[in-house]
């Protein structure tokens, strides 16, 4: 499994860690991020350290035109085209902000559902003739149950998880892996200062390693770190009447 991989949303910590893991395995990289200068610095670093081709693109998921153009752009960015696509961007406004301000919720749906699924669909159309290729997107454990603290965000992730389950069924016969990643909270800028030295915060490298090993095994869902799988299995099994009483 080599070839070039598009990482959309390459500015995030988890995406950077995953991109590094991909580069270490010899993949070329097309890094797309809203902050093009950042993407360029990451591409330079990974290209140099792992001697792989690496390009950077400025990309904003809120822009429908940019979303539609991304996969063809990335396909053309490096010789040899794409062998994988990772969607790593997401919006996570405060639940309270969404309740106050409808547009914040709609914009989140735009990014997490519309743009993500549009990219996955155009990537699927491109990659379905390339057996051995893969599609991967960051969903969340938050999509497994609706919590009062982040049900709107969770709903967008539930939509994504469901879409990816179907996409996986569609592409599996063609030899294309579709991996839905469900990370718990990781040690990143998103969580810095929120969970003081919590042992449950995963290191970005751990998340990246889990994703790469799930891709290598052709899995369709990976919880990372691993303990989120049993935790979520228990939470999913709880009746709604019990779940809503939990202090989470």
């Amino acid at each position, binding site marked *: 499994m080599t070839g070039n991989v598009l990482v959309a949303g390459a*500015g995030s910590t988890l995406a950077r860690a995953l991109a590094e893991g991909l580069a270490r395995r010899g993949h070329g990289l097309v890094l797309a991020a809203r902050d093009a200068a950042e993407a360029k*610095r990451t*591409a*330079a670093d990974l290209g140099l350290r792992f001697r792989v081709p690496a390009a950077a693109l400025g990309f904003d998921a809120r822009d429908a035109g940019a979303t539609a153009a991304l996969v063809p752009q990335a396909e053309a960015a490096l010789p040899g085209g794409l062998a994988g696509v990772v969607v790593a961007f997401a919006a996570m406004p405060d639940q309270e902000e969404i309740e106050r301000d409808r547009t914040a919720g709609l*914009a989140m749906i735009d990014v997490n559902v519309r743009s993500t699924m549009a990219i996955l669909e155009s990537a699927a159309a491109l990659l379905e003739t390339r057996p051995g290729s893969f599609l991967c997107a960051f969903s969340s454990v938050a999509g497994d149950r609706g919590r009062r603290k982040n049900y709107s965000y969770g709903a967008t992730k539930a939509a994504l998880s469901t879409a990816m389950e179907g996409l996986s069924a569609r592409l599996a016969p063609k030899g294309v892996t579709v991996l839905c990643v469900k990370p718990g909270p990781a040690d990143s*800028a998103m969580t*810095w200062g929120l969970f*003081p030295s919590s042992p449950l915060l995963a290191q970005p490298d751990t998340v990246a390693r889990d994703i790469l090993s799930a891709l290598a095994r052709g899995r369709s869902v990976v919880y990372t770190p691993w303990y989120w799988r049993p935790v979520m299995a228990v939470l999913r099994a709880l009746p709604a009447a019990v779940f809503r009483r939990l202090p989470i």
Partner: protein
Amino acid sequence: MTAPDDARVPRDGTLPPGVAVSASPLRSAKVSLSGWGRFGGDRSVAYRPESWRALSDAVASAPEQTLIARGLGRSYGDSALNGDGAVVLTERLGRILDLDEEGLTVTCEGGTSLARLLSFLVPRGYFLPVVPGTRFVTVGGALAADVHGKNHHVDGTIGRHVEELTLLVSSGETLRCSPRENAEAFDATIGGMGLTGFILSARLRLLPVETPLVRVVKRRAKDLDELLSRLYEEERLSRYSVAWVDGLARGRSLGRGILMRGDHVPLAEVPRGRTSPGGLPESAGPSVPFDAPSFVLGPLSVAAFNAVFYAAGRDGTTYAGFPGFFFPLDAVGAWNRLYGRRGFIQYQALLPREAAAEACRRLLEEISRERAASFLAVLKTTGPEGRGLLSFPRPGVTLGLDVPNVGERLRPLARRLDAIVLEAGGRLYLAKDSLTDAATFAAMYPRLAEFRAAQGRLDPQGRFSSTQARRLALLERR
């Protein structure tokens, strides 16, 4: 090779306003921090930017009055602590940005560790022209302390090998600084302990090497006079030279030690059967898992260790991998815990050559009289002064000692050591210092006023400060 330049400007103007997509809000955490000597330190507000934008957001909007950059926290004292202010951790900004094999330079972010840089450079046939005694420091920290290595007598400090750096100053502006451009900012930043701003990136010159090996020549010296005269005589025989001193030997053996010289080994000289080590770990070896009880590095055990080390230090030539020669302590993670919970200070003084023998003798006598076991005493010669206004080395000899925290006797001891250094016309090293005072420091650094003025022009609002800067009055009073 550089990355293809495909970056396009995001079409921000056409977007609906309001939602932060992946950019994170400016948020701080409370973390426990101390210097490497684990002497002093406290809970502190910390930011940890993951992008240049997040870093400039912190400079512009962090509610704390002052900020200071903190890399890998290897400065021994309070250089990277900031009391009621905040520290900004640079650990997530450690990317290598360019390798220019024709111009022989490497460009990287300020948060890049020398460990990462060397594991990138050495397999490609390059070394850094100056490395300190540990590779677990960041490039930004190394420039801010203007570190020197075992080759100071030949190559000067790391500041001499900086082609250019980009500095984020308190106005939010990014300044390109070099000896030719914004030279005042450059001279205040090299050795400026992070007080001029954040080093976003730096372009360093490279030293081509054919192998990762170092030829090491060892010679024992029975006392301080012999050790010093060997150092003076033999420094020009090798690029690298350093002496390990038995800090506990007294009387006639005071200052006995082992002189070690080193040179990079050319390919043609690699000994048979000695294949070059491939990868180099970016992290330390097994760590000291807990604070050692105080007897581990107490006077008796250190004396025993030093005696054995001295006895085993046979004269002769050997070949070592470069980490073993340059970074012997890096093999043990968190070795600072060996000194136990109370921590230790590192006392490093520079002494002008003419006064060196007498001053070294008195410093070693003071230490050994206190039975303040010094596990590591290191002596080395230094060459001409560099450009940095607060840079430490100038021609002479530097003596570095670990002094365990012996409780209430520590401060008086440090005062007596300071007096010896001052009388000899010497100075202390900011990256190591924990205990000296403003008046002593000012007497040691004649260019302090120049530094204050330059720093004041770069940071008129006083956005950058540290516990050390306040203790030693490094900044202009505003």
